[in-house]
């Protein structure tokens, strides 16, 4: 075991982590621990753009953006946070441009903007051009630009260091952050990083679904570590299904395709979104479009022999426009489906995409240990966190925005805290938990296999916790996940070595997914209403009287060692917008 000491430790090197690192490196001695090389992070897979009311191509303002974000989130959004998001969006985009990001340009040389789902002029009148973009690789350009600036600022990275535990210790009667424990993939060595401030920016957990746009590595490592240490997880039942994943594979095809004029069609060639969202049509919010697609499929209007998908039609768009604005996704259709989008529609289905829930934070990025008490020294930003700016459903282009606005805020706040605080003493045997876990897994001789449990989990989640949910499907999910967690205790790995043991890594990741799947299903079962991405067929309406509140899930361990999940609730912050019926 090695011990390192830094003022600030950032866990994860996607957009939020690197945006935080750029700020915190200027202010405090910072280390970034990342499971992947920074440029491998899944921010790079984001395509369509980053929202900001620059008003470069038409009238727009951040107040309209705030409203759209709150309405998009079906009023579960904390309105003070949404206001910050929309207001600071403008500087966030300009900061990236000045860092070198090659945005697409208007004829007069300013940043170009395009339409995106749920973003409207004047509170829902018509779609507005708010998404700042770089072709259909905006996330790639953000990730590259942030990495370039990390190189420029001399940010210190520990690449392929997998953080497995959060260390806290009680001083003056308060539980404070002491550091993290990481597993070095190359050597199998355990490292303890003592730190005054820790920022979790480790991304989402979308790999517990089978059809998913998420990378294999998005396994909720940060959320799971915090949850194990008794910290709550907020709104985990809200998971976004992106309407246009490649059929069966789940690979993302940007909403920007519809922003550029693409149309969804059923087997009769009908533009079915006109029925579900007369004003915004194909550019309604993602939860609305995903439900519409599955409604078409369930009512027998799906395409193909099994009527199990619909079409994204780009054939009416000029090939030059597709080449200039959507080169990557048209290439995906050619590579993975053998389909030429110039002439043929692309088969799509909704794909698990984004966790609205996560570690609860306030607007400074401080992680909360209950409804309002921050954990001294602990911060989170990006998909791992729940501020909550996305509420029950995130708008497209608001996540690239979120990582920049709240990544920056968390980086500054963490470094400021670190420069005015002392190190908290490490707990006794700080690496004991991780050493035990790793040794147990490596030495285990049980006959359960990671692949089988993971497959069963993903199939269970796709079947029971997807776009349409009921009491029955959720109960089935809770029960089956419980069984899978029991089976998980008997897994073994084949690779017993220390060097690059990705077999062991996948086993640990599966443990995290199981924990988070359970929280998701339990939280969803208790929310007897439909709101945003959480749709209950048995409770099809939003219920503001009983459920205008955030779910807070806690892990409880009984005296006999039995684990359970306790649910509590937290009020939604409402400032100027009263909940209204949500129509697009």
């Amino acid at each position, binding site marked *: 075991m090695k011990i390192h000491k830094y003022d600030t430790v950032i866990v994860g090197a996607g957009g939020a982590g690197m945006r935080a690192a750029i700020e915190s490196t200027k202010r405090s001695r910072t280390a970034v621990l990342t499971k*992947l*090389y920074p*440029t*491998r*992070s*899944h921010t*790079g*897979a984001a395509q369509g753009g980053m929202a900001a009311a620059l008003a470069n191509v038409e009238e727009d303002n951040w107040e309209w953006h705030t409203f759209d974000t709150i309405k998009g989130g079906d009023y579960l959004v904390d309105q003070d946070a949404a206001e910050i998001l929309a207001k600071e969006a403008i500087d966030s*985009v*300009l900061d990236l*441009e*000045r*860092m*070198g990001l*090659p*945005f*697409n*340009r208007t*004829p*007069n*040389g*300013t*940043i170009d903007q395009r339409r995106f789902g749920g973003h409207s002029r004047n509170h829902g009148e018509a779609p507005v051009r708010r998404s700042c973009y*770089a072709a259909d*690789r905006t996330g*790639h*350009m953000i990730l*590259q630009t942030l990495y*370039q*600036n990390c*190189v*420029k600022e001399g940010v210190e990275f520990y690449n392929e260091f997998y953080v497995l535990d959060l260390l806290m210790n009680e001083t003056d009667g308060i539980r404070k952050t002491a550091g993290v424990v990481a597993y070095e993939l*190359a050597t199998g060595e355990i490292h303890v990083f003592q730190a005054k401030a820790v920022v979790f920016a480790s991304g989402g957990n979308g790999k517990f679904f089978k059809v998913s746009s998420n*990378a*294999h*590595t998005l396994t909720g490592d940060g959320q799971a570590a915090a949850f194990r240490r008794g910290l709550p997880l907020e709104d985990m039942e809200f998971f976004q299904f992106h309407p246009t994943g490649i059929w069966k*594979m789940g*690979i993302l095809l940007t909403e920007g395709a519809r922003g550029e004029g693409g149309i969804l069609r059923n087997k009769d060639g009908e533009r079915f979104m006109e029925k579900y969202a007369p004003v915004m049509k194909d550019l309604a919010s993602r939860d609305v479009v995903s439900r519409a697609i599955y409604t078409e499929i369930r009512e027998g209007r799906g395409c193909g022999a099994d009527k199990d998908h619909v079409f994204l039609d780009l054939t009416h768009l000029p090939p030059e426009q597709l080449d200039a604005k959507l080169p*990557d996704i048209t*290439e*995906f259709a050619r*590579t*993975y489906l053998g389909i030429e989008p110039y002439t043929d529609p692309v088969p799509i289905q909704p794909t698990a995409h984004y966790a609205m829930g996560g570690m609860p934070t306030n607007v400074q990025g401080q992680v909360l240990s209950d409804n309002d008490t921050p954990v001294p020294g602990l911060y989170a930003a990006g998909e791992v966190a729940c501020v909550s700016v996305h509420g029950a459903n995130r708008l497209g282009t608001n996540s690239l925005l979120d990582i920049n606005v709240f990544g920056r805020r968390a980086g500054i706040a963490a470094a400021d805290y670190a420069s005015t605080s002392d190190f908290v003493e490490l707990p006794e045997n700080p690496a004991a938990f991780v050493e035990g876990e790793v040794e147990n897994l490596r030495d285990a001789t049980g006959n359960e*296999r*990671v*692949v089988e449990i993971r497959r069963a989990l993903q199939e269970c989640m796709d079947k029971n916790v997807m776009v349409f949910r009921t009491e029955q499907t959720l109960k089935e999910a809770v029960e089956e996940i419980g069984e899978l967690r029991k089976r998980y205790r008997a897994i073994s*790995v*084949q*690779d017993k*070595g*220390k*060097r*690059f*043991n*990705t*077999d062991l890594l996948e086993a640990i990741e599966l443990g995290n997914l199981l924990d988070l799947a359970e929280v998701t299903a339990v939280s969803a079962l208790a929310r007897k209403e439909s709101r945003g991405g959480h749709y209950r067929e048995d409770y099809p309406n939003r219920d503001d009287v009983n459920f205008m509140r955030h779910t807070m899930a806690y892990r409880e361990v009984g005296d006999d060692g039995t684990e359970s999940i306790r649910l509590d609730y937290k009020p939604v912050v409402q400032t100027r917008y009263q909940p209204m019926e949500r129509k697009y």
Partner: protein
Amino acid sequence: MEKSGDSGAEASAGSKAPHLITVTFRIRRFNPELSADAVWEDFTLEIDPKDRVLDALHKIKWELDGTLTFRRSCAHGICGSDAMRINGRNRLACKTLIKDITTVKDGRSAKPITIEAIKGLTVLKDLVVDMEPFFQAYRDVMPFLVTTGNEPTRERYQSDADRARFDDTTKCILCAACTSSCPVFWNDGQYFGPAAIVNAHRFIFDSRDEAGEQRLEILNDKDGVWRCRTTFNCTDACPRGIEVTKAIQEVKRALITRRF
């Protein structure tokens, strides 16, 4: 050594689902914890020809041999983790479909598909190489925008034409497929390699940047652009379709004319 998928023994073509084919994957294995020597190992699978090579690697790892080690993340050609040498050519495993690299006869691939680590970087285990020298070369070309004077209040302006000038080289995902396909890089690891030059190009030809001269001087070094022998391996290898050799030629021309 031979291991088989699915039903244990090699299944005959008649008993499997009709869309599946039988393919042997010949993989270069190396684990210094076990042996100092690398060996080829064969795995035979029944697999959908529309599957990716990455799907085959996962099938082997998850069902036959958990010790098989490779990097991957996004699985659709954006993160750049899984560059490897497949049938002697550098490709991303997640962007290569089995059907595109094999000839099928009687429900089997005519020849094994060979998979090995990319060349020119030290192999650490199986298909995993040491990426540090690669990223060091990248860092050495100042891969970030350099400007002087006061920051503008709003964005810097850039015309469409100026933006288009370096569009191609902004696509780079740093997968190292180009650099590790370059014979000059194989022979001499000191050469910056195509990927670093591509990333220098991305800034040299960006109208907003003011450090073009410095980057050109870095690349004027004996291990810089002049080592390029224009073999086009890099262009062929790039999974993002970047015209890598052309970018290198443009940097060479800029060094001669000092115009960019």
